[in-house]
Each structure stands twice: as C-alpha cells, then as structure tokens.
C-alpha cells in the first residue's frame, strides 16, 4: 500500500505510458518459448505434410500400381497382387536394352558435362575478375530461364540436314543417340557448373598459393589440392545431370530418331498403350538405379560435405 501512495496523483489521470524498461508481456511467445515441441511441430508440420504427400505417398502409389495388372480384354486394371510386370521387364530383351541404353546416355552426358564444367567453373571462381564472374554466372543461368522445348527444338534445327552444324563444316551426327547426348549435355550443363563453381568458391585462394609456395607446380596443385576439395561439388553436379537424363523422354523424341529411352516406354504405357501398371514398373528402374548409385556414393563419403 505504501508503494502506491508514493505515485503522484497527477499520474493517475493519464493513460499508463508503455514501459521502456523491464519485460514485455507476450503470452503467446512465452508459451512457444517454453513448449519446444509445440514450436517444432508448428515449424515443421507444413513442409512435412508436403513431403509426405509428394514423395512418400506418390512413391508408394507407384510401387502399388506396379504390382497390379491390366485385363487385356476389358483394358481395366486388375487390382490383385502380381509380379507379372517385373517378370516381363526381366524376360523381355527390349526393356533390358532400353534400360542399358538410358544408363549409357546418362553416363555419357554426365562425363561430358563434368569435363566441360570443370574448366568453366575454375575460370569463374578463381581467374575471372568479380565483374566477369557475375556476368558468367548470369550467362550460365540464362539458358535455365528459357523453355526446355525451345532449347531442344533449336538443337533439332542445328542438327537437321542442311542445318547449322553442317554449315559450320563440323557436320551433323543426324538424329540419333549422339544427338540426344549432345542436346542433354547442353541442357543440364548449368546444373553441373553451379555446384562445382560453388565448391571452388569455398576453396580459399591461399590454399592454392600455399601449395605453390611449398613447391607444387600447377598440375600438382590441381591434382592434390583442388580436385579432392571439389569431389562433393562434382558429385552433386553429376547426380543432377545423371538423374535428369535418366528421366528425360522429350529430347529423345525430338532429336533421337527412332531410339527410345525408359521415359518413352513409361510415357507410351501410361498413355497410348493404356497399361499403367507396366508404366509404373518401368518407372521403378530409374528409381532403383538412382538408389543404388546414391548408396554407392554415400559409401565413399562424398555426400557428407555437400
């Protein structure tokens, strides 16, 4: 009581001014501060639900569908469990050949992209002036803003009979797997350059200088210092180009001539052939390849620093 009596009367008439000192009353924030679980669940529920729906549920649906079959007379889906689709894939040579061809194209695209990306990324990260570096980053990114179809069709024009490739005297491989590899290598190149560039940018210049200072000529600096530090970036870029090529079916339709890749088989079976279960089973092939690949890469420890 004695405390309140000390407050001057005049103050009582005015609305209380907000206190500058002392704690601020925020019941909601206080609750969140105390309830760690509440905070975490509020933060994570939306993204987790999305991941669950998009990845887990979709993948499970794919797997389940691949275990069904289609009644050849009524063209209706027979929802009884069967491994027939996978038996077809294993026994029919066509599927094996297409699968191997797809992996082969993906490997070729990845090797070409890494080989092109390494010097470009090195120039961007370690040689170019800051201004040139910005312009190169934009130049690398710009193709990503253009439509996929436009890019593939322009390659169709370049590689066509009497097209740009022939004008320049280089000659055109014609429509076929080579054309697919060239086009895919072009389309996925930015995805390979950027992670390698990012990995190189994280390597301090002083490391390269120190290696030179200790007597290592340029080639040895690249081999013993730069490459080991670049492995995570190269792996990240390679995973991009490999998996994106594995799943592509448009490029091969446009510049691939009569060749087919796994994506085409999935597309045909899901559409024209009206055999969704077989399409789902074929779709399990690239998924299985990627799982095997990622597990192998993980064994090497390259994913830990990504």
């Amino acid at each position: 009581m004695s405390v309140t009596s000390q407050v001057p009367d005049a103050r009582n008439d005015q609305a209380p001014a907000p206190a500058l000192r002392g704690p601020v009353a925020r019941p909601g924030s206080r609750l969140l501060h105390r309830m760690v679980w509440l905070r975490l669940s509020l933060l994570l529920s939306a993204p987790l639900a999305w991941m669950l729906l998009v990845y887990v549920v979709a993948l499970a649906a794919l797997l389940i569908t691949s275990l069904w079959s289609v009644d050849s007379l009524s063209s209706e889906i027979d929802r009884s469990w069967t491994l027939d689709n996978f038996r077809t894939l294993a026994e029919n040579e066509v599927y094996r050949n297409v699968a191997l061809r797809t992996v082969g194209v993906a490997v070729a695209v990845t090797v070409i992209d890494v080989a092109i990306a390494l010097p470009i990324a090195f120039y961007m990260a370690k040689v170019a002036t800051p201004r040139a570096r910005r312009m190169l980053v934009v130049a690398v990114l710009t193709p990503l803003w253009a439509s996929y179809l436009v890019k593939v069709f322009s390659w169709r024009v370049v590689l066509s009979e009497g097209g740009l490739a022939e004008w320049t005297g280089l000659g055109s491989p014609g429509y076929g797997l080579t054309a697919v590899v060239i086009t895919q290598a072009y389309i996925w190149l930015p995805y390979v350059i950027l992670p390698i560039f990012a990995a190189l940018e994280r390597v301090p210049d002083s490391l390269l200088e120190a290696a030179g200072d200790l007597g290592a000529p340029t080639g040895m600096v690249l081999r013993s210092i730069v490459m080991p530090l670049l492995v995570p970036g190269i792996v990240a870029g390679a995973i991009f180009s490999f998996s994106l090529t594995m799943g592509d079916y448009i490029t091969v339709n446009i510049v691939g001539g009569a060749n087919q890749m796994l994506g085409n088989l999935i597309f045909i079976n899901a559409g024209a052939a009206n055999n969704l279960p077989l399409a789902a089973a074929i779709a399990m092939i690239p998924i299985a390849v990627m799982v095997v690949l990622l597990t192998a890469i993980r064994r090497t420890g390259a994913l830990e620093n990504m």
Partner: protein
Amino acid sequence: MSLSTRAPAETAAVDTPAITLRGLRKTFGDVVAVDAVDLDIADGEFFSMLGPSGSGKTTVLRLIAGFEQATAGTVRLGGTDVTRSAPFERDVHTVFQDYALFPHMSVLDNVAYGLRVRGLKKAERRDRAQQALETVRLGHLGARRPAQLSGGQRQRVALARAIVLQPRVLLLDEPLGALDLKLREQMQVELKQLQRELGITFVFVTHDQEEALTLSDRIAVFDAGRIQQLGTPREIYENPASAYVAGFVGTTNLFDAATSQRILGVAGEHAVRPERLRLSPGSDTETPRADEVRLDAVVVETIYLGTGNRVHLRTSEGVDLVALEQSTGSLDTREHRGDDVTVRFARADVVPLASGS
C-alpha cells in the same frame, strides 16, 4: 638430420643479403600498392614490415613470395634475380594469415606436403614431418585433421609445414593476427626462439607495432606503399623520422610547427614520448631549468592501466598531451580529473621530425 643446423656452405656469401629489393613497384589498376621500395634484408635477420592495412606491406611480402608480379623493379633472393619466377621456383616459404592448411589432409600430411612435392620417399617424409611437428611441440597431433585443432595449434602446423623444407627465408603474413592476446604473447616468444635456433631469415608482416618492436632486429614502417622509415626498433621508437612514424609506433605527443615555436621555442615539428613527461601536483612558480620544458596543465582524464596510469592533460596554452606514469607502489600517485599539475620534460627528449610528407 637436424632442422636446427644449416651448414655455412649452403648459405650465400656473407655479404650477399638474403633478400634484395630494388625500385619495387606494384600497381593494381590505378591503385599504387607499392612504390619505389628499396630494401636489403640480411641473412638470419628478423625483419618486420609494419604499417596499417593498405600500406603495401603485405603486397611486398607477396612480391617476394612470387604470388604477385612486380610492375617494375627487381626481387633478388641470395643474389639471384627471381622477379619473374613462379612461387614454386623460389627458396622462400610463407606462413599465411589464415594458415592455409589443406583441410582434406592430416596434420602430418600437411607438413609433409612440400616433401612429397620434392619426391622424397614416404618413410623419410614421415620422419622429417614428425620432427618438424616436434619442433613446434605438436608431435602428438600428426593424425588429426586441421579442423580438429585450435587456432594456436593450426598456427604451429603452418610453421612446421614451412620450416620442414629448411628455407633460407620464411615469410610470415600477420601470423599471430587471429590469436588471442595471451596466446599471441606466447607465440611471439616461440617465434623468436625458433628463428634464432634455425637461423632462418624471417620477414614478418604486422600491423601491431608492439609486436614489431619486441620481435624484430630491424623494422620497415610502411605507409601509402612506401617505406617511411627503416631502422632498429630503438631507432624507430626513439628517433621517429616523421610525424607519421611517431604517431604509428607507440603513442606520442606531436607538436606541429606553430606549437613547437610557441612552447618549445624551436622551429619545425617535434615529438615527445608520453613516458618522458613528468608530472607534479599544483602549479610551479620556480623558473624552469635551461635543459627542461615546463608547462602548466589540467588533468582531463586518468586511465588506470595496471602497470601505471595514462594521464590525458590540457596545458594552459590549450595543447593536449598524454603522459604515462609507471606505478611505483605508492597509493597516492593517481591524479584526478580537474587537478592542476605541472608537466616537465627534458629538451633532450624532444625529437625533431623531418618536415614535409
């Protein structure tokens, strides 16, 4: 095979400096980083390049190491012109400010890297690297990764990696800059001991004037890409050549030409070190002796330093002064804000500064 000996036959003739710089100039676009630097650094010398950031000292170091190409002038190492040589062709090694340890190698492999480059057998590499690690007292940490070491330990690994190659010259680019004070003082002592034991020429870049004064045989004070003064720590501190050097190395009381004329009665700029000022309480009415200067002043602020007091003063003429008083143990030495004091200093302690620049 001991690291601590270098046979005299290996060193160049006694009179040839370890490093000779002549007319060295480096520009980056329009910016002149280093201008007209002439320097001879003797074999076995602990030489420091002192200056604020952007003064060109690090660029000179990088020109000696070969990381930058000189715009003009020459760099000679032990009499051989290396101006156009690549870093890996020069018999100098650098300890980097950020240590630049290879993160994907063990500590031992880091130290052995230079030996590996030179094609030594694995067993010999390990032995020598281990020995170098022991020289910096890290023999037990060879298997660790650099990321698992503390800052001071990384610093030592960087040193070991350079000294394992027994260079004639070791370049150190602010090697202690990232360490805390206690560790830095400890490393200073160790660096000095190491340099003496190995007999290697050290070229040490620092912006810390105290570090330069305590460690060096000679110091070059840099500003704006030029050497402002070259001399022993004592010469630099006691006889600064210019107002810039006097102000950068230690604290000082600077008198511009007008003030010098007024209170000292002499022409030109002058400087007096704060520890040369003697204070006594109250105004003094005695006539000053001919060999000393006496001024009346008021204490503006007294700062306790542990070892003594730093007293900021303003004289009756309006000149700001700083005095340092060593603690003598008596409790009553501390002046208080607003106290009247008399300041005395010997005329012999007044250092004339070169005019201009």
